[in-house]
């Protein structure tokens, strides 16, 4: 059952690819106005879950409500309520940064004047004004993330889904992204993001869910989960990663030996 304070309520999500079960009954509840972190090892099912929640991948089972709208029953209304920044961004490469945002704003049926105003302000805030007339194809990885974030924010979504927003991003761009997201959250927006960087997740999130082998293995408020240990340790314990389990490769000791000429 969806509660009024839930920005996202995904229950019983399941997805299989052939014999492989990628997501096996995941439940997520995200409170409005919170930062919600999704963490898990590679292949845990984080991205698959986010793709199902954002309507990019049809789940085999489960229900998904975002901002009170069923994503799969009324996808058009749902899309108007959230923004998405995937990890491996596939953008419209041959538009300039300004054209790119304008195009997406116009597709969202913003008026030309309003769209133009928002685009200019976003470019300014994201530090992309000087690159506004360059093609997206020529953008660096950090610039691509920023323009992607701009596209996700343009229509003032109630919820933002960000998959690895800080991966492959330099510290300057990462700080810009965090600042913009901070403004967004202070204005009441909800952020759901996945990351492998535990420090970042611990620092930014109000609540965290740890996903492993397609299931939720731990979840709760960060202050509860991290009462006795850092999030990284909680994560390691939750996914059952044994410490010092990698066997030693004896021949690697030769790396320290002086080279024979």
């Amino acid at each position, binding site marked *: 059952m969806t509660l009024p304070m839930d920005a996202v309520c995904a229950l019983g999500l399941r997805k299989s690819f052939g014999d492989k079960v990628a997501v096996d009954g995941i439940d997520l509840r995200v409170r409005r106005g919170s930062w919600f972190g999704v963490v898990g090892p590679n292949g845990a099912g984080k991205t698959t879950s986010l793709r199902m929640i954002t309507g990019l991948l049809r789940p085999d089972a489960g229900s998904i409500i975002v901002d009170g709208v069923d994503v799969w029953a009324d*996808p058009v209304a749902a899309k108007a309520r959230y923004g998405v920044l995937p990890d491996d961004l596939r953008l*419209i490469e041959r538009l300039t940064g300004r054209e790119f945002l304008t195009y997406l704003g116009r597709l969202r049926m913003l008026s030309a004047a309003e769209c133009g105003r928002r685009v200019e302000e976003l470019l300014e805030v994201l530090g992309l004004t000087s690159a506004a007339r360059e093609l997206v*194809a020529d953008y660096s990885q950090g610039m691509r993330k920023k323009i992607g974030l701009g596209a996700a924010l343009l229509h003032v979504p109630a919820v933002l889904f960000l998959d690895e927003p800080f991966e492959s991003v330099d510290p300057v761009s990462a700080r810009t992204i965090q600042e913009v997201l901070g403004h967004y959250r202070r204005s009441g927006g909800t952020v759901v993001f996945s990351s492998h960087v535990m420090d970042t997740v611990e620092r930014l999130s109000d609540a965290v869910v740890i996903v492993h082998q397609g299931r939720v293995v731990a979840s709760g408020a960060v202050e509860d989960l991290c009462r006795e240990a850092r999030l990284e340790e909680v994560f390691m314990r939750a996914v059952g990663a044994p410490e010092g389990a990698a066997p030693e490769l004896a021949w690697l000791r030769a790396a320290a030996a002086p080279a024979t000429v």
Partner: protein
Amino acid sequence: MSATFARLKLAILLSGFRGEAKRSLGVIIAIVMSLIGGITGFVRFSGGAHKGGQSPLHGVVIGFTMLFSVWVFGPLLLGGVDDSLDPRTLMLLPLPRRQLRRGLLIAGLIGFLPFATTLTLAGVVVGYGPFAIVPVLALLLLCVGASRLLATMLARAIRSRRGRDLAVIIAALAGSVLWLGSQSARRLHGHQLDVLVGVLRWTPSGALGQAVFDSQQGRYMAAMARTAAGLLCAAIALWAWWSALEKLLVHSESVRAAVRIRGERRPLDDPRAMLAGRSNSRSAVVLAKELIYVRRSPQRRSALVIGTVIGTLFALFQIVKTRHPGVDAVFAAPIGLIFGLGVTNNLLGAEGPALWLELLSGATFRNLLVGRGLAAVPNLLLPQIFSALLLGTLSGAWPNTAYVILLSMVTWGVPLGVGTAISVLTPFPQPETANPFSNRRVAPGEGCLIGLMGLGGLAAVSALLAPIMYMVWTTRTASVATHLGVAAAAAAWSFLVWTGALRFASWFTQGKEPALLEALGAHQVNT
């Protein structure tokens, strides 16, 4: 080390047998095709010298030129790089440059094309005598050197966006030139053929062909001189390849940096006014963006330019090869639209992986199909209009020309409608210019299905245009008023077909968004 390279190349070539059935089928087809090509070449050349007269000379000079062209343009048309052994993958290995060069040279001599070439050239030695072996080996070196040189230069160039743009246009132009050249050469005879061979024997590959003929005729000094010239060209090509290879391996970022600096100096135009217009229709917004793409994307631009040029000449060929064009010849101009079908049959494939963004932003498949379809209309119209104008000029039938142009402008809905349906039935992502290997990785094993859908589409377009063609043909000598009536009926029919196809596409894509995104490569967004 050379043997390792050879084994590596062989293993990669045959790795297709270890994959899915359709990949194995692809390898089998390549083997069969190279066998057919090689045996045909062997048979043709092994008997070539005994026909007497000038034909053995023509055969060997034109044959060597064609072989050389296939070697040089083949990699260009297939994406630029020999992906089985990309030198960049070997750059971190502690290989001396000499070993690397030798290994890559040997690897370049192993494959389906080298196999077919070797069989063909064996036929030359059998047909023209043992002295032909030196120019034949020189040709092989020339082919490998020139082919690798071009591929390596292209691999460097495609690191920058502008370089990739250029590569797409060059590849499209090269394909057109090859096609036009082969079409024209087949129609030459007698004196025209002598002139052609006279020109070709001054090219490196043609000179080697002439050397083969000279050696067979006992003109050994002339043969040696021409072979030496050919060998010199092969040596230059190999040297240039090695030096390009060195730059490819060492100066990886220089091209991109240079392009970025140039880009900063000359900012792009900003046609945002087109996107920020007053229209409240998503389809119009998509159309505006697509028109920017027609101007800016080399794939779209080259599809338009090449389709127009080839489409125009194709229509012309169909008329000129049979008879002097009469006043009705201009009615053949619509043949040119065939060359626009490649675009209209795959409306969703262009930048398919980014489609999720447009769909998340509220665009429907109908919006995308309308906007992209309307932007593709020039691809259908221009070949017809230019064909009509050319045929009109040749025949002097100007009233008919105007009529045909009017008809082409009102009937585009039929091919666009069929293309709209095919676009949702068999969606496949268009290869990206950023990835030189993508040509062969896109829709693996689905080439047959896509080809069959293309043929089916052509049949559907013909069938749906048949009533219009019948009306046009039976009333071609009637009054202008009748012609206008026919054009109005054609426009109504065309509109009906297009809107019907859009309705079908909307119905068909309902609830299939994720599946279509998957098919169009959007799964690469996140997997």
